[in-house]
């Protein structure tokens, strides 16, 4: 943007000197001024770092334990105590972050991709395509999410990829709806009409104007969906549909395993539970913050 041609007198005016800012950088600036969003960002950073650096941080291997040390309360040696097999709970919670992060992110990305595709086809083409796709989506929405996920895992057999696919399918109809809705509202937007009146093709309208402008609600929804995806994965684990290897440190599975020892060792419930809650809160706070900073109507 360096424009040497501008006379000195004019460039002195602040409006002229100020560099142009795009909508994204504007939104980012607003996000950094949003307290709750920063807390969310911090919690997510903590979660991601924990997952990435698990082998470095964890004081013990997550799978090895000695039965002699089983069900110990939190001590200086075992910060979160030990579980029924004498494994260090702290290390298991740390490694559990890996499963949650991978499963959460992969399932949401998968859900956004499939759901976005359906929504883009429905909202972009309209007519019969729209009617058929949306009826399918309606059917998917009519089944409670966790029930759908259980059904899919039961059908495809247990395993982490199956879990991720199941959680993705729970999110597919939601994303499809969101994208279709915003595409529909944009179809009659003046700037879309403007470019249609110039002679823009349907593909161009969709790619250049409608999709970029409908991404905002999708991004917000995806961030919020990360929270529910992590809870869903844990929920499947809690219901006994977690990773096939029962030793895998997965937060939901850890909860189930400890229910039998609720009275003797409540810390086994508390720590994985707190881990789930903190992560979910982090994504929720960031999602709300993103919504506020990306949506011009929420501008303060």
């Amino acid at each position, binding site marked *: 943007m360096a424009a040497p041609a501008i006379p000195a007198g004019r460039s002195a005016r602040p409006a002229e000197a100020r560099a142009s800012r795009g909508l994204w950088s504007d939104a980012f600036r607003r996000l950094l001024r949003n307290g709750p969003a920063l807390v969310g960002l911090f919690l997510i950073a903590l979660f991601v770092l924990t997952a990435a650096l698990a082998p470095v941080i964890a004081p013990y291997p997550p799978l090895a334990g000695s039965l002699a040390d089983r069900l110990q309360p939190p001590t200086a040696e075992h910060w979160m105590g030990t579980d029924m097999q004498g494994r260090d709970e702290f290390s298991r919670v740390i490694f559990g972050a890996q499963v949650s992060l991978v499963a959460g992110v992969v399932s949401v990305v998968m859900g956004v991709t499939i759901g976005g595709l359906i929504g883009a086809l429905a909202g972009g083409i309209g007519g019969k395509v729209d009617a058929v796709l949306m009826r399918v989506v309606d059917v998917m929405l009519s089944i409670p999410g966790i029930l759908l996920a259980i059904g899919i895992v039961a059908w495809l057999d247990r395993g982490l990829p199956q879990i991720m696919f199941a959680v993705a399918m729970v999110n597919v109809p939601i994303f499809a709806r969101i994208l279709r809705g915003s595409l529909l509202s944009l179809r009659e937007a003046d700037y879309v009409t403007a470019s249609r009146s*110039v002679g823009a093709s349907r593909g161009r309208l969709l790619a250049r104007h409608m999709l970029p402008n409908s991404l905002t609600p999708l991004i917000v929804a995806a961030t919020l969906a990360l929270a529910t995806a992590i809870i869903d994965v844990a929920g499947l684990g809690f219901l006994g549909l977690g990773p096939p290897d029962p030793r895998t440190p997965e937060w939901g599975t850890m909860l189930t395993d400890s229910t039998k020892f609720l009275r003797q060792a409540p810390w086994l419930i508390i720590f994985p539970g707190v881990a789930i809650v903190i992560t979910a809160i982090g994504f929720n706070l960031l999602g709300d913050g993103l919504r506020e900073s990306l949506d011009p109507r929420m501008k303060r």
Partner: protein
Amino acid sequence: MTASDSGAAPVVPALLEVRDLKVHFPIREGLIFERHVGDIRAVDGISFSMARGETLGLVGESGCGKSTTGRAIIRLYDPTAGNVVFDGVDTTSLDRSGLKAMRRRMQMIFQDPYASLDPRMTAGGIVAEPLDIHGVGAKRDRQDRVRELLATVGLNPDYAERYPHEFSGGQRQRIGVARALALEPDLIIADEPISALDVSIQAQIINLLERLQGRLGLAYLFIAHDLSVVRHISDRIAVMYLGRIVEVAGSKELNTAPLHPYTVALLSAIPIPDPVVESRRRRIILKGDVPSPANPPTGCRFHTRCWLRERLGDPEVCSAEDPGLRELSPGHTVACHFAEQVDGSAEQVQAVGARPAAGAAPAAPASRPEPPTHPQVPASA
């Protein structure tokens, strides 16, 4: 403004000719098996023509079909019936590529400058889009052209990198004008281009449009609901009511000698900047609402609200016979069975706000009683 102000029909071949244009939107019922239960007759048989470089004002209340007319001309809506002939070519019969070529020569300016610019594109990108779509010039030249266009509409060319939200309403509308100019069109359809702007900005945009017209020989179809704005910029004015044109005349003539009762009512709503005249005027308040365009009144569409019909004792012809457009004087056409009765009536005189005849006697010879509320202020000087 190049065309004459007399309202005489243009002699040179028309740039745009609209013949019996109809745009109906179907009303459907039922979820799966949609039944066609009726039509919204947004535009129901209108005809007019425009010369090169002319400004035609199209006025009427909201919902009268004026915007639909504009959009049907540029083929954003497909006409239900009728023809739109642009420079000798009937656009209603064009295929895809023919339509695209035609759209190069017709452009549109929109009402709301906050809605008509894509918030995710830079000002430069927005202005360059028509050039991209039609593949005009090389990439490098396009940038220069964009800078030139921005300068033409009075914006700093260095603002090309900025996003719409960084501009004010007036500046945004200038970007919209620059976009419309990019392909050097012959006709610009301006759909209420200033009604969303602050009053102080409105004049700037009007002046910009007039300046550009003088320089580039543009024809404007200027759509507005406010006659006071339209009469300033237009050569001729067409008044629409409920999907029909009720009166067409030269701008000056329409404002000094309106012949349709509806036009008279519209004019009576414009305040006149003269306290003496204004205090004596009576606004014509039309009864009721505009009837539904799905079920328009029989005969003259205005008869349900017409003050003249009431005065004449509800003649049957008004509700029985559809008045066609009649040419009462050269270039002045009216669709009213009793247009002759309007001429010289007290309503017409008051609506156009003529000062009382020479001498300006305080006791005006108005046939109607004065409004009782206004205390008479002696006119000084």
